[in-house]
């Protein structure tokens, strides 16, 4: 393989990985974030207690969370064919990663919101805030640094999982590392892919960490 072919292979892999991370983070948050807010609010000590709904949602989340991710991806293959039309490549990977990450995101959002001090919420209630105002202006706003921190955790987890999805021809750098490094013993390509993945993780962590420090006024 010439250098320019190598470059092309890796840069395509990098771009694919970026799409996978961004796409699946986006979809996972689009569903996981509202779900996380919902399970927080419907707890029995929450703002809108709904015990039955809360129990049901928590059961479903726990079921998904307890399935090992690799098995979940395999199990989702038929569904993936049905929803995005294929069980291979970036689209399929984004689909299964998103589904796998939704319950994870929901739990992260829940734990961020539960950190908001109950006394503070009560003091806001005594000022006459409506429940909606409490959710938007107090809960979400006070938990913002932690919510953004959660995004960083999710994205880094997805980098790892995207590599795992590479085992099944999911596209991206993980796919390249396995195809060339594992099947063809081309360790050079594997290590290059690995280094780029490490840089990706570092980049996510540093950037989001910087944003969190900027907006976190709690200490």
């Amino acid at each position, binding site marked *: 393989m010439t250098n320019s072919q190598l470059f092309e292979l890796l840069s395509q892999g990098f771009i694919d990985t970026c799409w996978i991370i961004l796409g699946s983070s986006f979809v996972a948050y689009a569903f996981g974030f509202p779900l996380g807010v919902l399970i927080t609010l419907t707890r029995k000590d929450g703002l809108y207690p709904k015990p039955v709904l809360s129990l049901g949602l928590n059961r479903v989340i726990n079921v998904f969370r307890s399935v090992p991710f690799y098995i979940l991806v395999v199990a989702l293959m038929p569904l993936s064919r049905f929803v995005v039309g294929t069980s291979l490549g970036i689209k399929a990977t984004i689909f299964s990663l998103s589904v796998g990450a939704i319950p994870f995101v929901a739990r992260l959002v829940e734990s961020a919101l539960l950190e908001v*001090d109950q006394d503070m919420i009560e003091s806001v209630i*005594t*000022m006459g805030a*409506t429940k909606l105002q409490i959710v938007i202006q107090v809960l979400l706003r006070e938990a913002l640094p932690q919510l953004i921190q959660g995004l960083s955790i999710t994205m880094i987890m997805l980098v790892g999982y995207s590599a795992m999805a590479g085992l099944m021809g999911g596209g991206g750098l993980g796919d390249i590392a396995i195809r060339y490094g594992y099947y063809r013993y081309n360790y050079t390509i594997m290590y290059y892919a690995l280094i780029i993945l490490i840089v990706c993780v570092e980049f996510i962590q540093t950037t989001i960490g910087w944003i969190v420090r900027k907006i976190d006024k*709690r200490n």
Partner: protein
Amino acid sequence: MIEIKGLSKRFSTANGTLLALDNVNLTLEKGELVGIIGMSGAGKTTLLRCLSLLERPDEGEIVIDHLNLLDARDDRMREYRQKIGVVFQGNQLLKQRNVYDNIVFPLTLKNRKKDEYDERIKQLIELVGLTGKEKSYPSQLSGGQKQRVAIARALASEPDLLLFDEPTSALDSITTRALLELLKEIHLKTQATILIITHELSVVEKVCEKVVVIDGGQFIEEGKVSDIFNNPKHKTTRLLLGLED
């Protein structure tokens, strides 16, 4: 005039029903500064939670200007709540907002344009002695300063009743003294009706005109501070004063 009439609150516990508040009655004249003192478990917290409308009493009325706050339906709840300003013990400020935004917060709940309140907020900040700290965040303030912000915030919506829950329990003695001075000054300047719920004798002694002793969910003694402290009738009062053990 603020009237607390026949307030009772029961809790069901593993050992049966607990009567946390037992038919308590109190009338506050406008501009009065009254302390409610009692030991832990006397019903202070329940009383505070009922008066701040966080807990619904089983019986009784809280009447401000002939209006029973406990009749409130959801749509008028906000209006009713704003008649009572509460200063809690701790952890009550919004940590992601600065001093100014914390104080203006209760006002923006009904009207989002915070510019309209600029002058009022500046006056309040000056009143509690925090000029220059407008842009500071709670984490940058001392315990005493945080309490000052909480007081200014409670005053922002011009409540008919200002309720204090153990305002100095988390503060050292020097900060406590300064805060009590501030409390007196605020009372003098705003003529607000103030109710302080505390277990600290010194708080009542230094700032209150009238005192009510609570024990076992009942008001067992009430009157002018000097009268009660010089001539306590009830055993619990004597215990609190350290005249008996």
